[in-house]
């Protein structure tokens, strides 16, 4: 272990020597009411900053200038300057915002209101609510197609992925998936949509064209009870070749071949892993481990967990600055 750490440290030093700048990693701590900021190269904590009550979903504008945090118990989205972590303004979000997704252009923001069976659409420039879209019970997962035309919402008790036209705000298709869908993620080519089902224990692969499920990925880990395998967060590399799925209390991240949609590996991370984020160069993937209060750092090329970094209380979401 010591030796491994030494090697990693030297690898890190090499990283430093390269011109590629370090990125800031923002982790929302649901029970700590704060955000922990890490440095993506040194993997050290830069600081911890208060962000409001029960922060969960967290994302950043494409230009890296605005950090958005769902302050669930404040019924607001709070917006911060990512450099100073000072609050610049708030956005109306509807009650209990849990998770959101930004349009690829950076505007608008589509927010799942978990307690109110709504998706709220907010203009990030005018700070006005553009629409409230009624969806199923307990909306959570939010995804957007790479071309920005389709927004996906998953409702956890209705067990559907709702396909929403991002301009008319109308639902045009509903796909029934397994129990408690938590997360929706397109690949960058836009020809696959991955929807995780926490209680069903599966990831549905959906063809966005036809809205049909083309495959259901299931998981099996020796020595882990099947009930503990609860897929939540999903991230796909830009080339679409690797899909990472956080498996909750199984304390593993599954690595899936994005071409065959077969599971290739399981990586042991911290306890109750939910959300994940890549660095822009896809060198690292960060995972939030809500029960062990830490973040695991995965070396994406090597499929290896290289470090865990203690953060705040019950880390929930994570986003990496694009610059």
């Amino acid at each position, binding site marked *: 272990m010591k030796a491994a750490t030494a090697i990693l440290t030297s690898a890190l030093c090499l990283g430093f020597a390269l011109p590629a700048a370090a990125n800031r990693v923002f982790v929302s701590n649901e029970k700590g009411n704060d955000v922990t900021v890490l440095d993506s190269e040194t993997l050290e904590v830069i600081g911890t900053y208060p962000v409001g009550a029960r922060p969960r979903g967290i994302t950043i504008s494409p230009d890296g200038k605005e950090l958005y945090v769902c302050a669930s118990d404040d019924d607001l989205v709070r917006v911060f300057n990512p450099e100073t972590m000072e609050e610049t303004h708030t956005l109306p979000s509807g009650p*209990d915002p849990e998770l959101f997704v930004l349009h690829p252009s950076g505007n608008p923001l589509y927010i799942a209101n*978990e*307690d109110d*069976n709504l998706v709220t659409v907010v203009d990030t420039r005018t700070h006005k*609510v553009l*629409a*409230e*879209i*009624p969806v*199923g*019970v*307990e909306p959570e997962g939010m995804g957007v197609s790479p071309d920005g035309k389709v927004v996906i919402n998953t*409702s*956890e*008790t*209705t*067990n*559907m992925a*709702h396909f929403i036209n991002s301009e*008319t*705000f*109308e*639902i*045009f*298709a*509903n796909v*029934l998936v397994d*129990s*408690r869908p938590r997360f929706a993620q397109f690949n960058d080519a836009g020809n696959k949509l991955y929807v995780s089902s926490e*209680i*069903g224990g599966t990831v549905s692969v959906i063809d966005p064209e036809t809205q049909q499920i083309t495959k259901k990925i299931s998981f099996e880990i020796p020595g882990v*009870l099947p*009930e503990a395998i*609860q897929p939540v967060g999903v991230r796909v590399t830009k080339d679409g070749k690797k899909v990472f799925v956080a498996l909750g*209390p199984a304390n593993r991240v599954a690595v899936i071949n994005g071409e065959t949609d077969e599971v290739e590996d399981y990586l042991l991370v911290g306890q109750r892993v939910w959300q994940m984020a890549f660095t822009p160069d896809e060198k690292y993937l960060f995972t939030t481990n809500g029960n062990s209060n830490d973040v695991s750092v995965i070396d994406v090329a090597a499929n290896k967990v290289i470090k865990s970094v203690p953060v705040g209380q019950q880390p929930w979401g994570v986003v990496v600055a694009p610059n």
Partner: protein
Amino acid sequence: MKGRIIILLAGLSIANQAFAQNSADGAQPQTVRAAVLRVDAPHLPPISRLDAAPEDLGFAGARLAIEDNDTTGRFMGQDFEAVEVTATPETAAAEMDKLLAEGFPFIVTLADDAETLALADQVGDRALVLNARARGDNLRGADCRINVIHTAPSYAMLADALAQFLMWKKWSNWFLIAGSHPEDVALADAYRRAAVKFGAKIVEERTYEDTGGSRRSDSGHVQVQQQMPVFTQRAASHDVVIAADENGVFADWLPYATWDPRPVTGSSGLVPRSWAPSLEAWGATQFQNRFEKLAGRPIREEDYQTWVALRMIGEAATRTQSTDPAKLKEFMLSDNFEVAGFKGQKLTMRDWDHQLRQPILLTTGSVTASVSPQDQYLHQTSALDTLGFDRPETECKF
């Protein structure tokens, strides 16, 4: 803002039809009808005023379930209803007759063991009964009925859930104090069975006779402060007290008053329950918020068990894309059935006694201290079957 929602809803109904086309149902929503029958026996007030039963006990859970089912139903062209009926033990049979005459195919009952059994026999094959209150092991054993599904956990499940925790804690010497009512005796039996099953020893047993005193009165605690230490003195050396007090006669007075300084569990202290308003994990916070917004009070077990019963019907309607009661019943009783209940894993049906498999919460007044099954107890098919009567042990014959 209101206007916008209405416009969007209109958009939704178009989407409904698109979805409904698959099921060839047409545009008219199909209705699934259910009834909730609550039988209120006359009861003295509970020891604590905090435990007084709310007027809408169970019904509030039904209302939330119907809201949930209807929200999903909008996308499926399905509509759900649950009528609420209260009865006394004297009027229960007549009320049930009315519901049967009106042709309700699903009837959720909130009644005690004996009434539940009588109602089930009265119903026969005319409807499916979903038992959301009665915990008697006999209802899942020798007195099981093919027309009944149990969403309430059994005494054996509750006792096993506590026993697993006590064994993990290495508190294996138990002092069992049971009340004198028939339910207390049945619950005490479940603890005796759990002791054998998990290797604990009941080193002392006492019966607390309900003599009608020590209830809510100014002198209550004054008397009780004297009575409880004396009642529990000179017990064989034990690690923990287990109280079996289904009627709330004495258990709440035991903590801090036992002769020996030992923790109290069972009907007070650390209590096994199907649900508690303190649970936050597994999306429970959202569920609690939705319930409290609707009912204006914290949720009770009866509400949760009723919610699960009606959600099972809704889930079956979604998955089968049907509102035909026969199809829904068949699906609910099949191996393919599962429902999410905010307890961290899917809830499924035991085919040998129609008991819903579920984790059991171990709660104190303010927190959910643990959830059983404990990780250490393994099972060849489902860890949940370490709680209650497993397939080889069942006395149920349909």
